[in-house]
Every structure is written in structure tokens, then in C-alpha cells.
């Protein structure tokens, strides 16, 4: 009897399957609409979502940098399973390379400095990873944490890098002023197009951070495409094997050390890119922007979202960066509430907000096995 119920029970379609079942043109249109919505978000000024106390464009830019960082860190923590507590070091290296090359000691344009920043961050990832990736997981955590602090303290103590005062006058990304985009005004309860409050398309200025958000969004899309390609390739499978059982992977002929190093340096490169983006928007960087706490927030974003699931870590990054900004009315209690939220999330979603597909597969397999062993649990 119990087996018959198992067979007749219709498999519940979850959201993902339903979306996957849609015809292709519909999917393309939906994705395009979603993309347009994301780009228009800072101009829509939707009540409740929009932050009242701080510029919404700026907040969205911050959220976008966190998303970028989380995607990079996800390669290291989620795919390769290496706990990196010093990710802020690469973020700082990216920002400082841009600062040094475009303001402090040379005057390269921002666009030229960014690729150099990415490469330098990547090389620093290799330099840190090559000796330390041989130590086991938990040791790696403290070594990387130490690395993050070494980077920050070097910035503080090196006069060549501006010392504690940092680097100012970093040039902004090049822009063109094409047309004005109006925003919506909700003050009467219904949306009205507000022609007085406009954003110039691609003018990277000082007062209006919306174009920076657009730039960040474009970069996120590029990184996502790269992420999907790498994850589905041989490299992605090698990471998964290494993460699950390093010795077994090694026995199967996976050069685990080389793949771990690759993950580490790719993650570092994306961290450097985010740092470069941050430097271009802020125009000013100092060691204070790269506290150890930031590394911990980055890790929190990845783990809270669900390490290994790229949509999950994006959500995690949004949780970690957006909520403290949105709930500024809690003012002093922000960090406390954030800490509570982390604990609650950890207890109620131990696999993260969106666990990676593998975790769900394993769970289902476990359930099936249990059914085989003990029969269906009778209610």
C-alpha cells in the first residue's frame, strides 16, 4: 500500500522546473524584461524598496559590488571548497593598483588601469595560493585571514601608497553624455514621470551614482556568463570532485593542487575587478575601506546565500549589503540586528537561502535510500 502511494504521488513542480518548461521565446522575453527592470530599478523609486536616507543609486552600486565579490568568492568557497577569510586583500589590491596607476604615481586612464588591476590581483592570488594551498582547510582560513591583514597593514604603513590617508583623485570611468533618462516620482501614491529629476546616460559624475550601478550590472552579467561557462566545463567538474573528496579526486587523475590554485587566482581576479570598480566610483581609497570585517561580510554573503549556487550567493550578497542600508532607521542597532539575522538564517536555512543543486540532489537520494531501507514513513 505504501508503495502505491509513492507511485501515484505526482512530483511537485517547483518554480525552476516550471520556468524551464516555458517555450524559448517566452523565456528570452522574460529575461529581457527582468534585465530592463534591473537597469531601471534606481529610477523607478519603488516605495518601500528604495532607501530613504541614502542615495538609492549609491546603495544599489554597493549591492552590485557585493554581488560581484560574492560571485568571485563563490568560485573559491563554493566551487573549490577553500575557506578564504582574507578575500578583502584582493579587493584592496585591485583598488590600489587602480589608485597607484591612475592617480598616485602615474596617470593612466581608468579603463587601462582596470585590466592591470585584475592581472595583479590574479598574480597575488597565485603568490599567496602556491605555498598555502597545500595546508588543510581550517589552516587555510587563518592563513588567508593573515594575508588580508598583511595587505591592509602594508597599505597603512607604506608612505608610497599614501599611508593611512590613502589615495585621492582617482579618475572616473570614461563616459559619454547621450541623453537624459527621467525617473518616477511616487509622492502622490501613484507613479508619475518626473522630468526634473533625470540621470544622464553614462555620465560618470559625482552626485549621481546610477551610471556606476549600470556599469557594475554589465560587469556582473559578463562575470556570470564566464562563471557558467567555467562551472560547466571540465574545470568546474574538477573543482567539484576536489571539494567532495580531495584524495579520491587525486587518485582519479585530477591534479587537485593546480585546480585549487586556478580557483584561488580566478577568485582573486574577480575580487580585484570589484576593487577597481569601487575605486573608480569612490574616487578616493584608504586602508579603512578594507577592514578585516569586510572579508567576514563577504564570507557571510556566500554562505548565507548558499555556497556553490550562483543565484544563491547573489541573494546572499543582497541580504548582507542591502538590508543594513535599508534599515538605517535602526541606526545603532543595525549590526546587532544583522548578527541576529545571521544566526536565525544559520539555524533555519543551514544550507543557505538557495542550496546548490548538488545538496538538494544528495538530500533526495538520502530520502530515497531511507524509503528503501525502512519503507515510507507512515503518518
Amino acid at each position: 500500500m505504501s508503495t502505491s502511494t509513492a507511485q501515484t504521488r505526482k512530483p511537485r513542480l517547483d518554480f525552476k522546473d516550471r520556468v524551464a518548461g516555458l517555450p524559448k521565446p517566452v523565456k528570452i522575453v522574460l529575461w529581457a524584461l527582468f534585465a530592463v527592470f534591473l537597469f531601471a530599478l534606481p529610477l523607478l523609486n519603488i516605495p518601500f524598496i528604495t532607501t530613504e536616507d541614502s542615495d538609492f543609486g549609491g546603495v544599489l552600486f554597493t549591492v552590485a559590488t557585493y554581488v560581484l565579490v560574492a560571485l568571485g568568492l563563490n568560485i573559491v568557497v563554493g566551487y573549490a571548497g577553500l575557506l578564504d577569510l582574507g578575500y578583502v586583500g584582493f579587493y584592496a589590491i585591485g583598488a590600489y593598483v587602480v589608485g597607484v596607476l591612475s592617480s598616485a604615481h602615474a596617470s593612466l586612464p581608468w579603463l587601462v588601469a582596470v585590466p592591470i588591476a585584475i592581472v595583479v590581483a590574479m598574480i597575488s592570488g597565485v603568490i599567496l595560493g602556491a605555498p598555502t594551498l597545500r595546508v588543510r582547510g581550517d589552516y587555510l582560513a587563518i592563513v588567508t585571514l593573515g594575508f588580508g591583514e598583511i595587505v591592509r597593514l602594508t597599505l597603512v604603513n607604506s608612505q608610497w601608497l599614501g599611508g593611512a590617508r590613502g589615495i585621492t583623485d582617482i579618475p572616473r570611468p570614461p563616459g559619454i553624455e547621450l541623453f537624459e533618462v527621467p525617473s518616477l516620482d511616487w509622492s502622490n501614491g501613484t507613479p508619475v514621470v518626473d522630468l526634473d529629476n533625470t540621470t544622464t546616460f553614462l555620465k560618470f559624475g559625482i552626485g549621481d551614482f546610477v551610471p556606476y550601478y549600470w556599469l557594475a550590472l554589465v560587469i556582473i552579467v559578463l562575470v556570470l556568463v564566464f562563471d557558467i561557462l567555467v562551472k560547466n566545463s571540465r574545470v568546474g567538474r574538477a573543482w567539484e570532485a576536489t571539494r567532495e573528496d580531495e584524495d579520491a579526486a587525486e587518485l582519479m587523475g585530477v591534479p587537485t593542487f593546480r585546480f585549487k590554485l586556478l580557483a584561488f587566482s580566478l577568485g582573486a581576479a574577480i575580487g580585484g575587478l570589484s576593487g577597481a570598480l569601487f575605486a573608480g566610483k569612490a574616487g578616493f581609497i584608504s586602508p579603512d575601506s578594507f577592514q578585516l570585517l569586510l572579508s567576514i561580510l563577504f564570507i557571510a554573503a556566500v554562505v548565507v546565500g548558499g555556497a556553490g549556487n550562483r543565484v544563491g550567493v547573489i541573494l546572499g550578497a543582497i541580504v548582507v549589503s542591502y538590508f543594513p542600508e535599508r534599515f538605517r532607521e535602526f541606526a545603532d542597532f543595525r549590526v546587532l540586528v544583522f548578527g541576529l539575522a545571521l544566526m536565525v538564517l544559520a539555524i533555519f536555512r543551514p544550507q543557505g537561502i538557495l542550496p546548490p543543486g548538488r545538496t538538494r540532489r544528495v538530500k533526495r537520494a538520502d530520502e530515497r535510500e531511507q524509503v528503501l531501507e525502512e519503507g515510507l514513513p507512515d503518518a
Partner: protein
Amino acid sequence: MQFLIDNFAALTITGLAIGAVYALIALGYTFVYGVLRLINFAHSEVFMYGSFAAVWVVMILGGNVSGSTGQVIFWVAMMFVAAMLMSGFVAVVIERVAYRPLRKRNAPPLIALISAIGASFVLSEAMGLREKIARWFGLDDTLRDYVSNSRNNVPLPTIIKPQGVFNLFGYEVTNVDIFVIVGAIAMMIVLDQFVSRSRLGRGIRAVAMDPEAAALMGVNRDRVIRVTFLVGGVMAGAAAVFYLLKIGITRYDVGFILGVKAFTAAVLGGIGNLRGALLGGFVLGLAENYGSAIVGTQWKDVVSFLLLIVILLFRPTGLLGESLGKARA
């Protein structure tokens, strides 16, 4: 370099004193790691709460610099009692609230790190906001001395005046230095005996070695874990008293950098290894002091982290190797 040679004795003694504090905090990390295989990120706040309890108890008792010997002994004893009780309590609460629910759900180890980070934020912010929290209860006037300026440094009223006791190569070793170093080593010896001889210590070692086999042999795992947190917390409380006597101030975020240092010390000596924590603490304290004498104080922390990286390269499991269970089974 000349500075190092001239001040060698002074650097050694201060290095040992601060190293003793690192070692005592490191014990908490090592203990929990040995039993649960996870980094108790909230342990730094355990230390911080102990330090506040110690300061407050001296304030309540009206401790001052002109106390008689008997009074000073009483004050210091009360500092230990208050700090150890508070730290032990906080550690057990952390285990109950942040770790046990996860263990019950078989959560992946990484998520325990997040819940610990959350607990750490909550604890340190609660201390940093104590003035506002007291105001909710209308107690901010009554408790003014204890809660005002809650984001600032809180000094310990001076109760022991540092006095030179004997001269070591030109450095007056003070009574505080001796008390801190000797006291910390004594605590370590007591703990070492507790772990290797008592019934509970045997339980801790058993769980560290093989949790499942220990459970099959009738060891109550939950109880052992609770005791582990309690002992780690009590040691952090003692560390807080030594730290206050040596440094003299505390604040709501004092735990963070000290915690990172102590964890470094634990890893340096071989995490999960009690004697390793002691050795790691002293090595770290000394290296920091010598290093900053050679390359400048501002590079102090860089020296300690570089030392850690170099040691891990050559001894991947720390100076004395890991495992609470295997060390002296």
C-alpha cells in the same frame, strides 16, 4: 637591531606576558576545535565579557591604588571569580544558542562559522550599545558609571602599582609581569592535569579522538561539549584578568584583534593541542615584540602573520602537531 639588543630583557618579559594572555585565549579555540572541529569565532567576545565583568567588580568593590595587601588580594580574587563566571556563562550560552541547534540539524561546518559570526556581532554590539539598552529599562542613570560612553575605552581602576621586583639585564621585572606569566603557566598546568587525569577530561579526549566511538562507549557527547565550552570560557576569563592587569583598559571590540591573535597562536602551536596553545602563545608574543623592535612597531601584526605562514609551510599542522586526543593518549 641595536634597539633589540639593548632592550632584549624588556622585550622578552613583555612578550612572555602578552604571550601568556594569547595562550590562555588560544586554549578556548583549541579546545572547541579539538572536540567539534570548528573555529569558534565568537570566542573573542567571551574574553571581552570577562574583561568587563572584571572591571565592573573592581568598580563595585571600590578598588583603588592605596589598598592594603589583603584588600588587593581580595580584589584580584574577585576579578578572577567575576571574569571566569561571566566568560564561562557567555561561552555556554554561545554553545547553546549558536551551535547546538546546528548540530541537531547536521548542518555543514561552514554554516557554524556564520552563526558564530552572528553571535559575535550580537555580543559585541550589545556591549557597545549598553547605554542605550540600559535606557530601555530606565537604568541608565542608576548604572551611569558602568554604561556611559559605551563605545569608548573602559579603564581598570589601578589596584596594583607595578613595582620592580628584580633586575634582569637592566630591565626591572615588575610584580605584574611575574604574576601574569607565572599565573598563566599555573592555570595551564592545572588544565593540563584536568584533561589528562579527571573523568571529564578523559571524556573530552575521547570525543576529540572519535566522537562516535566515544558515544558508543557511553560518553555523553552534549555534556562533554558543554564542559569544553565552559572550560574554554573560564580560561578566557582568566586571560581577561591578566590582560587587564597588564594593559589596563578594555572596550567593546577589544576581543576582535586579540581573538585573531589567539587563534593564530593556537594554529601556530598546533590546533587541538593544549601544550601547543601554550607554546604558540609564547612564541607569538615573543616574535611580535622582537619583530617590532627590528622593523618597527607598526609592522608588529605583519610579523606575526608572516611567522604563521612560514611555520605552516614547514610544519603544516603547527609546531607540536594537532589532536587533543592523540597528544597524550
